[in-house]
């Protein structure tokens, strides 16, 4: 470490390099495979799922796993495996816009706080601390109580409460970058603030943000599933991992298979993205070690 900027992530032109490192790390490879499987099964759900996820077939109701129904059926004879595959779509539909939105807003606010005047910095940090003081689920429930259950509500609430996670990291990174020699040099050449922000700071904070996002996806997916489990997310009969668990919960004394099937994708998602995030962190910035997670 010769100066403050050396530990910063590699520029984007080295994406291939990052991929190469990820694949060589067994944990990273495992994560990559699990994540690819989940994303692919969600994207290609119509072709992978053997049955229509909402089609009822009463004569086949409450079956255990068999060759025709890999994970059995529910009380309406719907195929659980097909519902699990389609449920992945809802999970990604919520996770991607939520995290993209939180990153975008967190990036802008974090850069302003880190680069702007002290009073603005204080103000934004106070905003972050305030938003962080809401327990997410409680807050989401309060909003749902008002506007009624919907996926958009879930997306909006989780997005707002996730902003501080990204904003704080961007702020810290921007602060240390601000003092870096290459920024000083750029400034003395007369570069505008906008140029410094978007050409120099943004590419340098994207790496750590990607790591955080990978770690954050399971949390968001879990929240969506949890809220749908409580009946505050997707509306029936749309299949989601959470509503699947809810069906299984009410049928717990009739069949164990729906609960077992509903929990597995959630566990796999968490495992896959956590592995990927940790491997990515080791590649992008070894200094972030031990800072991710909860």
């Amino acid at each position, binding site marked *: 470490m010769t100066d403050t900027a050396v530990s910063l992530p590699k520029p984007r032109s080295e994406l291939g390099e990052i991929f190469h490192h990820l694949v060589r790390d067994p944990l990273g490879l495992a994560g990559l495979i699990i994540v690819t499987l989940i994303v692919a099964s969600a994207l290609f759900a119509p072709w992978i799922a053997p049955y229509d996820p909402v089609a009822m077939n009463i004569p086949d109701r409450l079956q255990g796993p068999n060759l025709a129904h890999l994970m059995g059926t529910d009380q309406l004879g719907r195929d659980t495996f097909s519902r699990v595959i389609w449920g992945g779509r809802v999970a990604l539909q919520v996770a991607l816009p939520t995290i993209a939105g939180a990153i975008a807003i967190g990036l802008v606010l974090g850069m302003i706080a880190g680069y702007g005047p002290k009073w603005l910095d204080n103000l934004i940090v106070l905003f972050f601390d305030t938003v962080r003081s809401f327990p997410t689920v409680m807050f989401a429930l*309060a909003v749902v109580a008002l506007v009624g259950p919907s996926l958009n509500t879930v997306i909006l609430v989780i997005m707002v409460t996730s902003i501080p996670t990204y904003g704080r990291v961007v702020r810290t990174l921007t602060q240390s970058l601000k003092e870096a020699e290459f920024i000083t040099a750029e400034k003395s050449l007369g570069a505008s603030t906008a140029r410094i922000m978007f050409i120099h700071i943004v590419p340098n904070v994207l790496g750590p943000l990607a790591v955080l996002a990978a770690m954050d996806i399971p949390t968001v997916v879990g929240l969506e599933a949890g809220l749908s489990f409580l009946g505050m997310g997707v509306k029936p009969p749309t299949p989601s991992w959470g509503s699947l668990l809810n069906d299984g919960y009410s049928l*717990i004394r009739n069949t164990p298979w729906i609960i077992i099937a509903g929990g597995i994708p959630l566990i796999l998602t968490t495992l896959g993205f956590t592995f990927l995030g940790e491997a990515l962190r080791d590649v992008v910035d070894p200094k972030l070690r031990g800072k991710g997670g*909860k």
Partner: protein
Amino acid sequence: MLTYILRRLGLAAVITVLAVTLLFLIIHMIPGDPISTMLGPKASPEMRAALEARMGLDKPLIAQIGLFFANMLRGDLGMDVFSNRPVTTIVLGQIPYTLTLILVSILWSAVLGIALGCYSAVNRNSLGDRLTGVLSVSVIAVPAFVVSLYSLLLFAVKLQWFPAIGAGEPGDWGDQLHHLVLPSLAIGLSWVGYIARLVRASMLEVMGEGHVRTARAFGLPERRITFGYALRLAILPTVTVIGVGMGFLLSAAVFTEIVFSRPGLGKLVIDSITTRNYPVVMGSVLFSTLIFVASTTLADIINAILDPRIRAGK
């Protein structure tokens, strides 16, 4: 020290005021009004006006916020729409259940997590260390409400070792404890792995630091170095994480209470949403925010007491 505590308490107060105001504003900004939600579509204009006046919704926004704070300071959060009991009484009646559940969960997982992390750090790269590492990641990966459902299925429905419903007979400690086992397992499980990893990492970091090397050079027994010097500092991040993690704990408690039909804040909120008992929902959210702010503040203060460097840095 006192200055630090006072400053931290001041910040907590500011954040609480801002959080409550923000909560209030968001509720007012989002489409949909509580009156329609509460009364349903068939409400007559007179009924609407009466309820609006009773909840103070006919006054300008600033006046409403002011009134809200004034009432809050007097401990008045409005009346339950159905039973006409004060919201404060209802919510306060449920908080002990939730807090007991959270405290028991975090207590067993912290004890086990710190022990495992400490063992891992001392026996670095041994088989036990690797095993702990794999186990930690595996348990972190299971969301609390999935553990709730799986353990309900296995231990309550199939094996019938533990009860599936409720919090136990009031006054009967053994019965209450019996009812706490599965819910606290569900909430605490991922924390064991998380704390174990955290303690291991910070322990290894601390053990490489100058003052520990000095202690070793002075010939202090290894046991004293591990527990007296390294562990004391290595626990600090755990305290912070538990404080900040209170939000996650509260969220996990909501799901767990529903799954096990336990009384508590989470069950209260969900029941109130289904019956459109709007003031009770708001009161519960408010109290859980207060608990969260209090716990992060407490964690910071405990950290400052344990680690002189934090005080000096401020």
